């Protein structure tokens, strides 16, 4: 009895998380799921449904669950903007592949502007220039694992070190994002860069770090230095080309020389944000390769 109850709840509650992978047919699959739900419930649990008390209990339970879910959603939305976060995770394989290629080889790409759709930026799935949080999150986790692997090959591994590496890298990331936010405030740049955008841009360097450490593990120290150098230059160019469009004024972004103290300050700011990335990349990986 109890197993059948939970399976019926499972088919109805499968819409707890929205399916963002298909933009148009999402609503259709939801409708079809709901249609299939009561039908599937009819076949195995007919004896269950004929009892009015259990019917009432099921209806009450499901309404209570949906009320609780609404309350949790409303309260959680106050602290963590979940709807905004969903935009950053709306990626697919093609986007991830193109973006990883862009992070390692940004020299051939020509159009770096983020395309908009009626004032809101287009989801990362449709625009390779849009920032996302999937690659930084996966990169961070992979970096922690690769660091553990590198320490293990040198017999310096213990399970606490994974936590130490993770929290250390996280602290550096938070400090970098706070420093960038502070400098953006001081220079009074009117930009539509949100905090999450800055988090995404700061997280892109993990890809280069992983490539460097893996090359160092496979082929030794010279390969580590070479690949790290390549990735540092690549991420420097990537950051400058991406931030140039967001921070500088329109004339300066197109490459024309614009005089004025403010534009010069903004240019220095872009340069220093981009230059901080290779420094962090080296700082967080050099102790892993001996």
């Amino acid at each position, binding site marked *: 009895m109890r197993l059948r109850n939970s399976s019926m709840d499972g088919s109805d509650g499968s819409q707890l998380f929205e399916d963002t992978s298909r933009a148009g047919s999402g609503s259709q699959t939801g409708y079809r799921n709901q249609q299939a739900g009561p039908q599937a419930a009819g076949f195995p649990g007919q004896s269950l449904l004929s009892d009015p008390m259990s019917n009432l209990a099921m209806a009450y339970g499901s309404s209570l669950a949906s009320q609780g879910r609404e309350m949790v959603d409303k309260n959680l939305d106050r602290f963590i903007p979940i709807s905004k976060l969903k935009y950053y995770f709306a990626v697919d394989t093609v986007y991830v592949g193109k973006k990883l290629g862009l992070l390692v080889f940004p020299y051939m790409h020509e159009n770096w502007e983020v395309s908009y759709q009626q004032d809101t930026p287009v989801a990362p799935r449709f625009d390779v220039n849009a920032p996302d949080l999937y690659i930084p999150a996966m990169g961070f986790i992979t970096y922690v694992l690769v660091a553990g692997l590198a320490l293990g090959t040198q017999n310096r591994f213990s399970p606490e070190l994974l936590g130490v590496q993770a*929290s*250390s890298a*996280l*602290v*550096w990331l*938070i400090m970098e994002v706070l420093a960038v936010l502070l400098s953006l*405030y*001081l*220079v*009074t740049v009117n930009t539509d860069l949100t905090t999450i955008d800055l988090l995404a841009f700061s997280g892109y360097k993990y890809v280069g770090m992983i490539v460097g450490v893996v090359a160092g593990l496979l082929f030794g120290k010279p390969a580590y230095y070479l690949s790290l150098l390549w990735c540092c230059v690549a991420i420097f160019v990537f950051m400058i080309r991406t931030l140039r469009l967001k921070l500088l004024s329109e004339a300066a972004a197109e490459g024309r020389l614009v005089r004025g103290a403010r534009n010069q300050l903004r240019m220095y700011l872009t340069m220093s944000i981009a230059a901080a990335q290779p420094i962090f990349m080296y700082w967080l990986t050099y102790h892993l390769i001996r």
Partner: protein
Amino acid sequence: MAFTLYSLIQAAILCVNAVAVLHEERFLSKIGWGVDQSVGGFGDEPGIKVQLMNLVRSVRTVMRGGCPLHVYTNWLV
């Protein structure tokens, strides 16, 4: 370096406390960072120093619960 989140929180609290105990009359005005010396930046160019002074003032106001004339310490020059 083995940083932990706890050390970050410690450092943040100490920095905010350091900004909060800067005395308006005795110290900030003496070095030209007082709040009455920040006007004159109308237009769209406040400049870094004015922004920094505004930031210090807002941190101090927030930390004191919104009372800017509160006498906080009397030994800090």
